[in-house]
């Protein structure tokens, strides 16, 4: 595949690792994938399922955006419609935005980067043969599959009952219309599959916890010679912070969802105000997980950006320890800000003030990261390859998402902006504009390593531009709609808001097209891509020191790690279109 004299390639016995033996063709058949304990294959399987859920959630998004652009969404036109039809239409809208949120959050963003890129890259970056507990890793993938099948059943049941209403006495109602937050008391009354959906999320939580356990143990125990904590790649620091949150926050979601199931199934009266329960307690429990979960999403994205920005700027990362510590700071601070989701739900003024203050404090480590990335690029040798374009998009979108977060963290402005499209735009900038963008950038960056194929830079850049433009078209206008008072989660609006919705829907289709182009690029690369060199970017983290794609065992002998960001060790070699060790 490649003639690069990687450090270990010379030492391998020919029988085991000739140039064609890699993890992809090491063994064949369905079982060799479904029950593999190889972290690379598990990462790839996660990647495929998560991209499928991105597609599913994206379809829901396009449906709900289309519904909002139709004339029926304008209240002025409601007189032209049969009220029963209108109600039905709004019911469908409720299902669409809930399913969009639930699928995207639980099946795409939360597992996304740790499970796909983390699983694939983490052991390679550590120069290890696998994660600390390979069987547990496989178990967590299987649990993920079970959890996603339960959520898929919720969808299927919704479709079945919609098509054959006679089924509902037997299988109950399907779909989900509570919003992805499952707030009580509505989740007690809703005629949708709340119990199944929450149980699915509960199961997915276990997958997340086990991945976190695995990553923490791997980073503690499997670091190679020469890699102390402060020579660990920053992506691993970010994953460490993520794993802490996965461990400490996810079980609280688990117990919350169990209580919700008990509430709905047995009417225990813990959360339901109709039974003298406390619905605010549910909100506290829910956000105690779900706010840190925002950092489960965004921390690994920041880690990806830290890797990409230094590799494609050909310059040592600026402020290594600041970036590393800020990951941990974000992880810890993230536990103490959940109350900012509840400023208007009757919390005491004192609690509001404290939560507001703590919320602002999270912006400090976040800003540290942004400034360090910018300083890394300063006077670097920037290669505007596709991953780097995603880095630039990330920095801009994250800055917008982060700065608008300050409006929402401030008590006075939050009263006005709470539950409007402003907040929808804010969290899409953070979750999608940052996490999805970083996920795509990371996928492009490690694509040659994962598949052994290069992708088309031209198509990649066009797709990135479309995603960037489409994203901003869709969501920037929502800041304006929200500040003008457009409430979130409404199926209809007054005439004043129509223009915002039309622009937003148009942008959504541009964005969707861009994402399809990304998918096309990847598939095209798999079929017709040029073979990838071992180190196409000249990055110095250990995963680039094994061949592309890596052999089954990653490294025959544990490599010795040096400074992960010393770019001077690698020089470009035109003949293989990749980088080789400078001293070879």
């Amino acid at each position, binding site marked *: 595949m490649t003639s690069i004299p990687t450090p270990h390639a010379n030492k391998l016995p020919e029988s085991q690792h000739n140039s064609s033996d890699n993890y992809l063709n090491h063994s064949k058949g369905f079982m060799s994938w479904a029950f593999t304990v190889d972290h690379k294959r598990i990462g790839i399987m996660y990647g495929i399922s998560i991209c499928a859920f991105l597609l599913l959630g994206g379809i829901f998004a396009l449906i709900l955006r289309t519904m909002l652009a139709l004339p029926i969404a304008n209240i002025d036109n409601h007189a032209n419609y049969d009220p029963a039809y209108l109600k039905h239409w709004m019911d469908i809208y409720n299902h669409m935005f809930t399913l969009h949120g639930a699928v995207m959050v639980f099946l795409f963003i939360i597992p996304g980067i740790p499970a796909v890129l983390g699983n694939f890259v983490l052991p390679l970056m550590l120069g290890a043969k*696998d994660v600390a507990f390979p069987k547990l890793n496989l178990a967590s993938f299987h649990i993920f599959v079970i959890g996603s099948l339960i959520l898929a059943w919720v969808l299927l049941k919704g479709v079945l009952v919609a098509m054959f209403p006679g089924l509902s006495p037997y299988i109950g109602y399907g779909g989900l219309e509570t919003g992805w937050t499952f707030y009580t008391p509505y989740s007690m009354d809703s005629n949708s599959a709340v119990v199944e959906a929450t149980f699915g999320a509960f199961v997915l939580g276990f997958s997340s916890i086990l991945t976190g356990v695995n990553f923490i143990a791997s980073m503690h125990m499997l670091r190679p010679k020469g890699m102390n904590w402060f020579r660990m790649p920053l992506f691993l620091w970010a994953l460490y912070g993520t794993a802490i949150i996965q461990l400490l926050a996810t079980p609280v979601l688990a117990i919350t969802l169990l*209580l919700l199931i008990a509430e709905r199934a047995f009417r225990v009266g813990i959360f*339901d105000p109709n039974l003298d329960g406390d619905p605010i307690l549910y909100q506290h429990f829910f956000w105690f997980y779900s706010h840190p979960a925002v950092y489960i999403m965004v921390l690994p994205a920041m880690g990806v950006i830290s890797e990409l920005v230094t590799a494609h700027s050909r310059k040592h990362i600026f402020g290594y320890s600041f970036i590393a510590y800020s990951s941990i700071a974000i992880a810890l601070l993230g536990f103490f800000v959940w109350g900012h989701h509840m400023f208007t739900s009757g919390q005491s003024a004192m609690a509001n003030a404290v939560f507001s203050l703590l919320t602002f404090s999270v912006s400090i480590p976040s800003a540290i990261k942004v400034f360090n990335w910018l300083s890394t690029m300063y006077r670097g040798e920037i290669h505007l390859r596709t991953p780097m374009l995603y880095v630039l998009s990330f920095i801009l979108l994250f800055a917008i998402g982060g700065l608008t977060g300050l409006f929402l963290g401030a008590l006075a402005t939050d009263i006005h902006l709470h539950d409007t499209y402003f907040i929808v735009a804010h969290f899409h900038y953070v979750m999608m504009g940052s996490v999805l963008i970083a996920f795509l950038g990371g996928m492009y960056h490690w694509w040659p390593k994962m598949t052994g194929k290069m992708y088309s830079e031209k198509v990649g850049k066009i797709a990135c531009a479309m995603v960037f433009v489409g994203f901003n078209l869709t969501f920037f206008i929502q800041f304006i709609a929200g500040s003008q008072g457009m409430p979130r989660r409404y199926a209809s609006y007054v005439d004043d808001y129509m223009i915002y919705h039309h622009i937003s829907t148009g942008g959504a289709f541009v964005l969707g097209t861009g994402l399809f182009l990304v998918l096309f690029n990847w598939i095209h690369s798999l079929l017709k891509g040029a073979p990838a060199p071992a180190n196409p970017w000249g990055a110095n983290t250990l995963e680039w020191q094994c061949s592309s794609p890596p052999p089954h065992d990653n490294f025959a002998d544990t490599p010795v790690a040096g400074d992960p960001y010393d770019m001077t060790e690698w020089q470009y070699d035109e003949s293989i279109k990749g980088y080789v060790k400078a001293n070879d």
Partner: protein
Amino acid sequence: MTDTTANPNDTAHNSDHGHAHDPHVAHHFETKHQQNTSAKLGMWAFLSTEILMFGGLFCGYAIYRANHTDIFMYAHKMLDMKLGAINTVILLTSSMTMAWAVRAAQLGQQQLLKLLLAITLLGGFGFLGVKYVEYTSKFHSGLYPGARNAYFDVEQANKSLGLSGEYAITPTMKHWHIKNIENHYFGKYGVHWQVPRQYQIPELGYHPPHHAEHDTHAVTPAEHHADDQAGEVRESLTVEAPKPGELEHSTIAVPDNGPAGVNPQILKAPASDKPEDHAGHHILTYDQLPELEKPRVHHFFQIYYLMTGLHVLHVLIGMSLIAWIFVRACKGHFSKAYNVPVDIVGLYWHLVDLIWIFLFPLLYLIH
């Protein structure tokens, strides 16, 4: 080469990378110490998630207890403190045998290891047995989890939830009048601490009726005399529990004097100033609960069932793990050189024990 695994029992991997490996060390670890430390680290990390998971329940408990203290004071007496104490002893003992088993495994004492694991497992069964007795006795009294609980106000719930017809919540134990439950539990074992009904809870603004003629409690007529201070507080361990048929109308003979060892000063204190029993416990009957709190009494039992139920689930998981370790010990898998699984399962079992150590006082021993 087949996929190699972390399970040291699978020694299928061949040493395709040069250096000879201990068969108990998975291929991605360099040394046994590294593997053992990883396993323990992973287990500790996982146990932290368990703590956090129960933490949610403890938090819910704290909030409900703080907001509805009277309910907890009133309802916890229906839990059986003796059975709870027996279970505590059982679990603590099994935790000790488990710790001893870990030591035995480290020293390579095979027979002792098997014996201790068997005792630990037996402790698990004992715990479940006692729990079974407890749960069934609660069920017989109508203290079910969920909407079937006798304290659950079904009509009120249907009204607030807007449920009717086939969707309405239907009680199955409605014939169990709350008075019966109260008598059944407060009369049983002779610990009928609900005696002085003249007391008030001023901060709640509740003023109980001066004449408790509607009261069907099993008390002596002497008790209604405010002057009869010695009879105000009863510690009547000598009194037999009423037979099932007698619950409504039985009169339990209560000794006029306090039990030996009780400070006479306490016994002589005027009842109206002492909303507490001889041990300083708040004493309440259902009638004395503020009206707003009456429909919420079932919350205590819901929390009780949720907390102990989740704990029982963990006991079951722990027992399965111990059984697995026991089978492996019988097959002779463990030695001085390799015993980490015993250690790991031991950690889990200690967690199960630890959680019970918190549950027991929080649910059974409330003051």
